[in-house]
C-alpha cells in the first residue's frame, strides 16, 4: 500500500551517477540518515541479545514495572522482564520478519516476472492474469484472508503478507525484463553472439534485481508496520515471544504507571519505518537521478 500512496516524488537537484551504491547513499541526505538509523537498529538486533545481560523471557516478580534504572536501562514490564532485552529480541521478529518477507516476494517476483517475460506466449498470459487478480484486491484484505485461513501465528503472518505482496514485484520484474531486453547494449550483446542465458544473466537479471530492490526497500516500512500491527492484534507473534507490536499491546494497561513500556516500542517502530522509507526514497532518487515530476 505504501507503494500506491507514497507518491512523494518531487523535483530535486540531480545526483551525480553513483560510483558505488553506498557512496551514493552516503551523499544523499535522506539516504545517509536512513542508513545510519537502520544500521543502529540492525546492531541492536544482532549484537543486543549477545551483549545485554538479561534474558528477554525470564520473569522477575520481585521487580515488576520497574522504572528505567542503571540495571534495567529501559525499565521492566508487568512480569519484571527487562524491556531493553525484549526490544533487542523483538527486533529479530519485527525487522528480520519484514526483511524475510521482502526477500521472499523479491525472489518469487523475480522468478515469475522473468519467466513470464522470457517465455512469453501462453505462460506469460496465464501468469499475468493471476497477477492481475492479485493486484485487483487490496493487499491488507488479502493478508486478512490468508491469515484467516491459516490461523494466527508468526510464520503464518509472514506467509500471508508475502502472498498479498508478490504480485507487484512480478509485474515490475516482467516490465523491467522486457524493457532491458530491448535496450541497445543488450541488442549489441546478442549480435555479438552471446548465448541467450549469458544475456539473461549479464544484462537482464541485474536490471530486474536492481529495480525490485528499490521497490522492496520502499515497501519495507509498510511491512514492518504490518507485522507489528498484526502482532499487536494478537494475530502474529504469540506469547511469550517479544515483538514490538505485541509489546505495545502488553503495555496498554500499565501506561499511567509505566509509560516507558509504550514509548520505547513505539519509538523503535517509528524509527524502523522512518529508516526504511528514507532508504527507499534515496534509492529511488539515485536510480532516477533526473528526478520525477
Amino acid at each position, binding site marked *: *500500500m505504501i507503494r500506491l500512496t507514497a507518491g*512523494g516524488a518531487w523535483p530535486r537537484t540531480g545526483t551525480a551517477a553513483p560510483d558505488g551504491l553506498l557512496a551514493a547513499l552516503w551523499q544523499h541526505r535522506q539516504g545517509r540518515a536512513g542508513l545510519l538509523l537502520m544500521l543502529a537498529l540492525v546492531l541492536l538486533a544482532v549484537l543486543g541479545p549477545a551483549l545485554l545481560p538479561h534474558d528477554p523471557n525470564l520473569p522477575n516478580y520481585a521487580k515488576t514495572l520497574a522504572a528505567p534504572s542503571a540495571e534495567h536501562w529501559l525499565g521492566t514490564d508487568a512480569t519484571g522482564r527487562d524491556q531493553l532485552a525484549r526490544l533487542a529480541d523483538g527486533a529479530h521478529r519485527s525487522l528480520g520478519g519484514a526483511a524475510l518477507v521482502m526477500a521472499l516476494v523479491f525472489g518469487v517476483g523475480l522468478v515469475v516476472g522473468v519467466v513470464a517475460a522470457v517465455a512469453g506466449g501462453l505462460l506469460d498470459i496465464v501468469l499475468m492474469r493471476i497477477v492481475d*487478480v492479485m493486484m485487483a484486491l*487490496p493487499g491488507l484484505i488479502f493478508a486478512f484472508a490468508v491469515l484467516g485461513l491459516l490461523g494466527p501465528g508468526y510464520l503464518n503472518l509472514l506467509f500471508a503478507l508475502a502472498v498479498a505482496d508478490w504480485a507487484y514485484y512480478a509485474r515490475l520484474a516482467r516490465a523491467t525484463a522486457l*524493457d532491458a531486453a530491448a535496450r541497445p547494449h543488450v541488442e549489441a550483446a546478442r549480435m555479438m553472439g552471446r548465448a541467450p542465458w549469458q544475456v539473461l544473466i549479464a544484462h537482464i537479471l541485474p536490471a530486474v534485481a536492481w529495480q525490485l530492490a528499490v521497490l522492496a526497500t520502499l515497501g519495507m516500512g509498510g511491512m514492518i508496520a504490518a507485522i507489528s500491527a498484526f502482532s499487536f492484534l494478537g494475530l502474529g507473534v504469540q506469547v511469550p515471544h517479544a515483538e514490538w507490536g505485541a509489546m505495545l499491546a502488553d503495555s496498554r494497561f500499565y501506561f499511567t504507571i509505566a509509560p516507558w513500556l509504550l514509548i520505547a516500542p513505539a519509538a523503535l517502530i*517509528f524509527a524502523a519505518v522512518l529508516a526504511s522509507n528514507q532508504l527507499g526514497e534515496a534509492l529511488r532518487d539515485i536510480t532516477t537521478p*533526473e528526478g520525477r*515530476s
Partner: protein
Amino acid sequence: MRCITSRGRRPLVSDAATITQPRWRSGARAPAAKIMQAGLSVVGASLLVWAMMPLAPGDPVNMILAARRIEEPTLEQIAALRAQLGTDLPLWQQYLVWLRGVLTGDFGFSWRTGQPVMAEIAARLPATLRLVGTGLAISVVWSLALALVAARWVGRWPDRLVLAYTRMMAALPSFVLALLVMQFVVVGMGLGRVLSGGAGITLVIAAMVIGIDRAAGWTQLLRAGLLAQMAQGHADVARARGASEGRILTRHALPGAALPFLTAVGISIGGLIGGSPVIEVIFTWPGLGEHVLMALSVRDVPVIQAFVLLAVLAYVGASLLIDLAALWLDPRLRGQGAQT
C-alpha cells in the same frame, strides 16, 4: 516509466495527457470496458474468497465444533453439520450454491456463534462505515490544505515544514498513532472516553487518527501533482495574463492534479476498511473490528469470507466510480485505449 518527462522541456500535449495519469493506471479504456474489468475482478475475487472454505486446513466440521467449544460431539451433531455445509457436493456445485447465497446476502452461519453471518455484520457495519467515512473526509480536507500550502510556497519554510511533517507521519503506523493519541489525549488530557460505547467524541478522535494517518501520503502525491501542473504551459499563459499564483494554483493547477489524487483516494478504500479493525479495537469503537478479530483468531471462515468480500466490493466499486469520473472529467483519457 512512460510518465517521466524530462524537466525543463515544455511538455507537449501528449505529455500533458500522460502526466495527469497516475503511473498505475496508464491504460484508460472506454466506460464499458472499465465496468467489464471491475466485474471480472469481482468474479475472480469471489472465486478466491470461496476457495477459502475448501482450502482451509482441517475438516470444517471439526473446526466448527472447535470454534463452538464442543469437545465431544455426538454423531447426530456431526451429520447435521455436514448436511448444512453441503460438503458432499462436487466443488463446482459448492461454489454455485455459495455464490447463489452470497448474491442474496446469505453468507451462511458463523462457525463460532451459529448466527447468520450477514445479520451479525449488518448490525456492526454502520458504525465502521461512519468511522471510515469521517476519517476519509478529514483526510481529504487535511491533505488538500497541506498540499496547497506546500505548493503555494514551494521550497520555502511552509513547504519544508509540510514535507518534514508528512515524512514523520508516513513513518508512524496508524495503530501506533492511535495508541499515542489514546494514552496522551484521551487518558492523559481527559478528552473523550476510554471505553467509547459509540460516543460522538470517540468518533471524532478516531476518525482524526485515520485522517491524519492517510493524509501523509496523499499530501505528497497532491503536492507533486500541483507542482507538475504549475510548470505547464497553461499555467504560464495564466501567469502572462496577470493571474496571481494563488489563483493559478486553485483554478488551473488543482483541476489537473485532482484526478491522480482522487484515484489514490479511491484505491485506498480497501486499505481503510482493512485497517479499521485495529483502530476500532484501540478506541473500543463498536464496529466490525472486534467481530472480525474474533473470527480471525478462531478461523471462523464464513465471517472472514463476508468481511473480505465486502471490502473487495467497496474497493472495486470505489475504483470503478473514480475511473468513470476520470473518463467523464478528462476527455483526453478516452482516446488512449491502446496504451497499456
